[in-house]
């Protein structure tokens, strides 16, 4: 079955018609015919991320699979897969988030059938030996090591570890170090993970560029049609409301300026309610380069050289995270208090309608200017598809942004920014007493 949505209303922020079809096994195919002669972007969206890592001791497997998926099949062992990618001159990679994993290829549109062939093969027939599995675990440790030369990785790990008691958002996408170190011993678990989540009813194929949508549907039917669905549903622990403020301090063994990170629990993404859109607008009002707080801390007093905040779209309630790098170690508390004071001001002072209008205009132009090549368009669409499975979500959520009122801002500021809902982590340079 196929249908065409979007691109037909002047209010739609997504300017291109989207064609959607679905196989009987549940695999959804979404395509956009875009004016990029000879180029096509091919995304496979797996609606599984670190959110699905519910068993203790097994954090990091969604991301680990991002690596394992390049380890070959009977038909196309690693070397053969890599050779085909090389022959196509393709840009092929993958990434993992809390909620989803994306496998993406940008290549010549002449190669479309080859792409469908090799991608369908590894999603249905991945085969890796225990030795290869253990080797790849070494690369994960390497990735952890390189990330942890940056203090922000430590801050994030600490903040999430403190703010979440039960929900898998407690650990970062990379996973906990102890679990990563134990990965080489968990070959069987990895097979189970693949069996649970790499299924057609948990995936979406998104293709943008020089593509004929009906030809694409036929190819996908031909290559993915026999893929068996699996209705496994993980039981994801529900995080109870936080009832008191949590705080942590960590140190860094190398030269650094101090950092401050604050997190507030906020609701899951929805294209039906105003809460998350209003929180996104609020993040601009609080932390954009034109915000009063930025003016004060960054431009006038110059007590921070980094200040940002916001919450990503998430399938379960994420943290609205604020980060500041403080230029003077003695001003950490001052900066924290100034941030909290500004949030509190938003609870009682209604935002100027012209400032709100400028913010909405900024968000719409920013979105529109980002849609200038097949890869970015596919990624944008994939982001909304992993959240709801519906490409129309992108237009719905931007209509909600347009509808955010000063009262909505006041409402979300009051509802979600209580002291009891806050976790604060600071990072300072380790003192060398010796």
């Amino acid at each position: 079955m196929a249908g065409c949505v979007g691109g037909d209303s002047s209010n739609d922020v997504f300017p291109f018609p989207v064609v959607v079809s679905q196989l009987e096994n549940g695999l959804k195919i979404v395509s956009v015919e875009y004016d990029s002669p000879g180029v096509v972007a091919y995304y496979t969206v797996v609606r599984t991320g670190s959110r699905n890592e519910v068993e203790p001791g097994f954090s990091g497997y969604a991301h680990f699979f991002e690596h394992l998926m390049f380890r070959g099949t009977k038909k196309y062992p690693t070397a053969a897969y890599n050779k085909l990618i090389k022959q196509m001159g393709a840009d092929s990679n993958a990434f993992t988030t809390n909620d989803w994993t994306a496998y993406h290829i940008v290549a010549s549109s002449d190669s479309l059938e080859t792409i469908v062939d090799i991608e369908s093969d590894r999603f249905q027939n991945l085969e890796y030996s225990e030795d290869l599995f253990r080797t790849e675990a070494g690369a994960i440790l390497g990735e952890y090591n390189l990330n942890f030369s940056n203090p922000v990785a430590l801050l994030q790990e600490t903040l999430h570890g403190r703010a979440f008691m039960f929900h898998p958002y407690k650990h970062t996408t990379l996973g906990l170090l102890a679990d990563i170190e134990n990965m080489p011993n968990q070959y069987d678990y990895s097979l189970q993970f693949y069996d649970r989540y790499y299924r057609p009813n948990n995936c979406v194929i998104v293709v943008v560029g020089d593509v004929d949508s009906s030809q694409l549907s036929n190819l996908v039917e031909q290559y993915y049609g026999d893929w068996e669905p699996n209705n496994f549903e993980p039981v994801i622990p529900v995080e109870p409301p936080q009832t008191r403020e949590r705080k942590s301090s960590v140190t860094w063994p190398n030269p650094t300026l101090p950092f401050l990170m604050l997190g507030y629990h906020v609701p899951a993404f929805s294209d039906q309610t105003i809460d998350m859109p209003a929180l996104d607008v609020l993040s601009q009002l609080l932390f954009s380069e034109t915000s009063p707080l930025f003016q004060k801390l960054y431009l006038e007093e110059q007590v921070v050289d980094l200040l940002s905040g916001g919450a990503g779209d998430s399938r379960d309630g994420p943290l609205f995270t604020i980060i500041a790098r403080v230029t003077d170690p003695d001003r950490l508390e001052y900066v924290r208090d100034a941030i909290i004071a500004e949030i509190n001001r938003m609870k009682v002072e209604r935002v100027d309608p012209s400032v709100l209008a400028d913010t909405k205009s900024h968000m719409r132009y920013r979105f529109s200017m980002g849609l200038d090549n097949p890869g970015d368009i596919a990624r944008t669409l994939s982001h909304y598809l992993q959240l709801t499975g519906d490409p129309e979500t992108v237009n719905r959520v931007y209509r909600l942004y347009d509808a955010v009122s000063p009262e909505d801002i006041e409402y979300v500021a009051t509802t979600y920014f209580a002291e009891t809902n806050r976790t604060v982590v600071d990072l300072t340079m380790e003192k060398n007493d010796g």
Partner: protein
Amino acid sequence: MDRFFVRFILLGVLGCSSCAFGTDQSLSVVNSETSVAMRMPNSPVVNFRVSFRVGSINDPQEKNGLNALTALMIGQGGSDTFSFEELRKTFYPWSAAVSAQFDKEVTTIIGSVHRDHLNEFSEIFLELITEPRFDVSDFERNRDSLKNGITATLRGNNDEELGKQTLNGFLYRGHPYEAPELGTEKGLEVLTLEDVKRFHLQHYHQDNVLVGIAGGYPQDFVIRFEENLQNALPAGVALTDSLPAPDSLSGVEVTVVNKQAIATAISIGFPIDVTRADDDFYALLVANSYFGEHRTFNGLLMNKMRGDRGLNYGDYSYLEHFIQSGGSRFPVTNIPRRQQYFSIWIRPVPHHNAHFALRQAIVELKQLVDTGLTEDDFSLTRDFLINYSKLYVQTADRRLGYAMDGRFYGTNSLIDEIQVRLPLLTLDDVNNAIKRHLQYDDLAVAVVTTNADSFVEKLLSNEPSPPTYNVSVSEEVLLEDQGIVSFPLNVDVDRLQVMPVEEMFRELSR
């Protein structure tokens, strides 16, 4: 005014060989002596890249960082009419952006705006370049930002970048390229606002500029913009001092940066006398892609070090200075240089395998130099590059950047050169170019690690460094390892140095 119009003779309305791949079909390219314009009437965005032939090599002695700070006073400062704060407020509802990119020889002011606001934006953008505000507050903020970039970010927050900058300084000791692009700690400390004003007047002038504009602008827009820019810039004389050759290396010269680190970062390199202006560059492009294509599993290093052994996250090589563009795998544009270096980047390796990893990278380089590519390796890699390079220019902004870089080197856009030159290459061209320009005897090595003394001791003793694998590796790999674990590294003891991280980039070596 007259002079400007004389110069604005169209050099050509070009179709380009790669237009059929990935770009709006209505793209038209117009070049003048001082501009590159790429009109895409269907695009809602207009991108600006205004490049000046000035870089960190123009920093006065002991004032390292002046070029970077001057660029930031434009990219992160106010204009004569608007304060930085007012500018940001004006740009914000349009989601328009201005930034500055600085390197050794070229500095580029970058802007982007939706065509709905093109005229208002371009007036302000032009004023920013020609009449920066030079506000004291902007000056202090930007200088501190550069200084923090050295004292906090480079020294303590990013070991990989620290390793690469260490290699750069080490390769170019006493050379104009030595200082990091963002300056040195001491250099930045002594800079004054007057220094910045003088530097701007001296280098941001009519004869030093190349204007690049791409996207959905109206037909006559570029002519108007360039005319206004030229009228607002002072006259000047383009100065391009000749560059001395970098010091030659003698054996394996090692700098070890000592700091707390969870793993060891390694960069290896040596200067090469090849740039995009040379025929051999294109032959070496194939060799380098085969050996270490950035962040792909095409490269030999990646397959042997990560793929077969799980030593680390990635291992790549480069034929020219490389900065990754955002989260993509492609390089940023507009950082052309007259002198380049070949380098190998080994991403952090567990300390206990660092000595082995260094040896392996050099052994693999030796293998490349001694035996070259096979016919299959050659043809597969060449065909890969012919297709892959087209993906470098998926946006108008990137296409523009490459076209401007072509001006620096006196060539067409790199992608167009690849399309023309690579099909004509032979295996012999590639293997002969390897012999002419690559080698494995005289290398600079930058290592960022904990317990540097112990690492140095192992290096100097040349003791065997058997790797510790958490995994079982194949017999074939173990056999290869036998040729690596005791491979002698001819480390030059007199030039070996261990640096505490706190001293890195405080000032130049001499």
